[in-house]
């Protein structure tokens, strides 16, 4: 996976790139927005990591302008904690995710993995979480070489959880993703689907991966990390 790191502090950029490379990402650096434009015409990236305060302009303005006339890979924006809710709302307009500066490489890598699992511009048809592999086109899940037997709804549920592995997926998100508007959702339909899926995962030797966060939702542990 190829990542473009847009960051004007050279030392910071070098350290971030270094950390990401050790975690299996290949990275390029751009020290300015014009440098980023150049890099993006000569190569294709799977994701970009964008700092906001750059010498030749504001990162978010650049991102929004760029999105208007060409395809830009998903972006993780680095924002200063100093900027409060209003800033974050502004970010919602253009960024796919944001991390609070100063960045932690571990967190950045986790966010990148999560971002790249999401169905995006270059949708990945194979989603992998640890030994668990899901083929989004064929709707088939494997644990190692063993194929899991899943109903359509269980496959949808597994894909959703896998694409967001390592983060809590809210219950209402699952309801909206799995059931249509006009389809009546019984109060424990989601729970039932989850427990069936959990049993199948346990049977396939993926133990303790699917956890319930009562009152909030469910989480599939990011077994990659």
């Amino acid at each position: 996976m190829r990542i473009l790191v847009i960051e004007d502090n050279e030392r910071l950029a070098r350290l971030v790139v270094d950390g990401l490379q050790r975690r299996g990402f290949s990275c390029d650096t751009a020290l300015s927005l014009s440098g980023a434009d150049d890099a993006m015409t000569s190569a294709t990236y799977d994701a970009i990591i964008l700092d906001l305060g750059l010498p030749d302009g504001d990162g978010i303005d650049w991102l929004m302008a760029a999105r208007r006339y060409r395809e830009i890979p998903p972006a993780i924006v680095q924002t200063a904690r100093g900027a409060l809710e209003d800033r974050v709302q502004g970010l919602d307009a253009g960024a796919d995710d944001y991390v609070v500066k100063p960045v932690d490489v571990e967190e950045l890598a986790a966010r990148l993995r999560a971002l790249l699992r999401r169905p995006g511009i270059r949708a990945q048809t194979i989603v992998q979480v640890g030994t668990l592999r899901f083929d989004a086109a064929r709707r088939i899940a494997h644990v190692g070489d063993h194929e899991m037997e899943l109903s359509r709804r269980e496959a949808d549920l597994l894909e959703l959880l896998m694409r967001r592995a390592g983060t809590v997926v809210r219950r209402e998100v699952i309801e909206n993703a799995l059931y249509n508007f006009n389809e009546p959702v019984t109060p424990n339909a989601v729970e039932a689907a989850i427990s069936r899926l959990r049993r199948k995962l346990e049977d396939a030797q993926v133990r303790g991966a699917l956890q319930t966060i009562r009152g909030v939702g469910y989480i599939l542990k990011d077994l990659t990390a």
Partner: protein
Amino acid sequence: MMRRNSVSRRLIRGLGQVGLVGTLLLFAAVIFFYRLTFSHLDAGAALRRAILESLEHVALPVIVLMVPVTVLGLRVIRQAFVPLEEAAIRIEAVKGHERGFRIDTSQMPEEALLFTGAVNDLLERLDEAARRQEAFAADVAHELRTPLALLSLELDRLDQVDAPRLKGDVAAMRRLIDQLMLLAQIDAAASAQIAPEQVRLVEIAREVVSLLAPAILSAGKMIALDIEDETVIVRGRKEAIATALRNLIENAVRVTPAGGMIQVFVGPGATTGVRDEGPGLDQERLRDLVRRHRRADHASKDGAGLGLAIVDQIMAAHDGLLVSDPDRRELMLRFPDV
């Protein structure tokens, strides 16, 4: 003890002196004009006349003048001080929200303007000093972040057993700095009188629990959210309330043993908080901890004692309270009802 100066008493004393002098002068005038001599006084009729003349020309004018003057004088004084008393009540009422407060001088008598003006100037200077102090603290915090970021990135490259521990320390430091900056922002927003938004506690709790759950699960502990009331709305700043709740949860994570459960709750009423499997924290100890920014014995070494003090400050800015119930092992944020 020295008797305190009183304008009313001084007025009465002054008027008394004026009355006395007036009486004596009037007496002298009566004696002079009516040629009253002490020789006349033997005769009963003369005495009666003398008394009558004195009453008519001395006592009556003195009483007719002095009584209304005294009553009016005292009333004027009392009324003159009413704006000052009202200002005192208002000053008392802003306890805890002193920033940006000024005495309203529109109703003040001209004579008091010099004083109230001087007090307002003093308040201005104190605000300015506090602002500078905060700006400085915020600058320091901001400037510290880049070297800390570099430090943690450098640590990330180290292939040593100590590296994770050091990284943890740096991460704790970074969080502390973030929180100090958040506090500075809350203060700045309060003094700029930015109107708070209405936020749903359930939303905040879900977000914070979602954010922290992965790390809590990795540490072998569990977390759940119990919702007593879905609809609770409070007025405040979302990020500040989220930080307060996050600090409570992180505190609970520290004192909860592996395999233990951290229960976050919302409601009943405008409350949210955390129930843990730690030893509980009595109210007095909590106050002490918050006041002195000190770390309680029950917190382990990786805990920043400032965390609860920050929660307390955030709650104060929301007119709310940080409450502890050691029997139920709860730490709770209590907000005023909207």
